[in-house]
């Protein structure tokens, strides 16, 4: 069950960067070697940076790989005027060490034992925890229905595109991508922002009682959650995680 691991106070530990790969124009996938024990899909870690004068900054990042995978992966979006993300995307290299604590969370978590149907709704880098859930769904051989509605700006901005295309071929998995800024000729997915009309059409209906997870920029998450509750989804089954912005 969720959170079966023995709880202890979290402490900071050192992780080794094993891979650092640009995935989209604005997002990098960072793979870490670290002994955290098994994590749950949906959990996050906190990263801490320390300047030479002792000043520290910390931020949270979702774990984008499944517990069954070998590395703990993050997907970090570069915010041009950000304090922490440009360091993680531009300065950090494979072989470097960084400080982190985790895994954290037990509310915004899905694992095979919880069954389905499950509706995932992501804005931008908010897809990160759902990548872990999709990988876990496959590794665990889950037959739960899992449906992802994912909003990206343009085709180039789709994170983990190849893996999402592969997941879309699996029984029980639906991947529904909408592009908000520009769509190429011949684009077969959706176009436009996630609004009440799109949710009514694309989301597993409330009558089927899906567990719903919404993740991404704060305004995106709050708008989607409000519309879903208005469409009859019980507030308690609509779980949210706000990334800020």
């Amino acid at each position, binding site marked *: 069950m969720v959170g079966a691991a023995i*709880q202890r106070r979290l402490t900071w530990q050192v992780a080794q960067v094993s891979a650092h790969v640009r995935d989209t124009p604005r997002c990098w996938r960072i793979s870490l070697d670290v002994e955290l024990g098994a994590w749950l899909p949906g959990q996050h*870690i906190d990263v801490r940076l320390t300047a030479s004068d002792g000043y520290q900054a910390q931020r949270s990042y979702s774990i984008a790989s499944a517990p069954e995978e070998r590395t703990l992966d993050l997907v970090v979006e570069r915010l041009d005027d950000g304090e922490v993300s440009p360091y993680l995307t531009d300065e950090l290299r494979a072989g470097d060490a960084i400080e982190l604590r985790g895994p*954290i969370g*037990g*509310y*915004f978590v899905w694992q095979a034992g919880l069954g389905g149907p499950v509706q995932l709704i992501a804005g931008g880098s908010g897809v990160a925890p759902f990548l872990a859930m999709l990988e876990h769904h496959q590794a665990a051989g889950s037959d739960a229905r899992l449906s992802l509605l994912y909003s990206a700006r343009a085709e180039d901005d789709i994170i983990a595109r190849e893996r999402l295309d592969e997941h879309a071929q699996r029984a029980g998995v639906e991947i529904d991508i909408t592009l908000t800024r520009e769509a190429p000729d011949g684009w077969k997915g959706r176009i436009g922002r996630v609004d009440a009309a799109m949710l009514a059409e694309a989301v597993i209906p409330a009558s089927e009682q899906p567990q719903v997870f919404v993740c991404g920029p704060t*305004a995106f998450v709050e708008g989607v959650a409000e519309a879903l509750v208005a469409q009859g989804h019980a507030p308690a089954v609509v779980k949210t*995680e*706000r990334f800020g912005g």
Partner: protein
Amino acid sequence: MDHIAAHRLDGNAAAGRLEDVFAVEITSVRATCNGCGATAAVAELTVYADAPGTVIRCPSCEAVVMRLAQVPGSTWIDLRGARTLQIPLR
């Protein structure tokens, strides 16, 4: 979107800081607001993490439920706004 909304997070963002102190999975802990009596999971509370400390508010009435401040060598936690914390045992 207003300045405040742009900086709004939820209890997931404060969980690492709280688990530095409490040895429980904190986002599933249910907190009852001392202001209005509403109960919510810590993950559902509203968090403003860019103040000098972290301010955690009730999603129903906006009252402060918890405040955290980290100073060198200690963490201060003000729980005046939490009537109860219900911690699931396993």
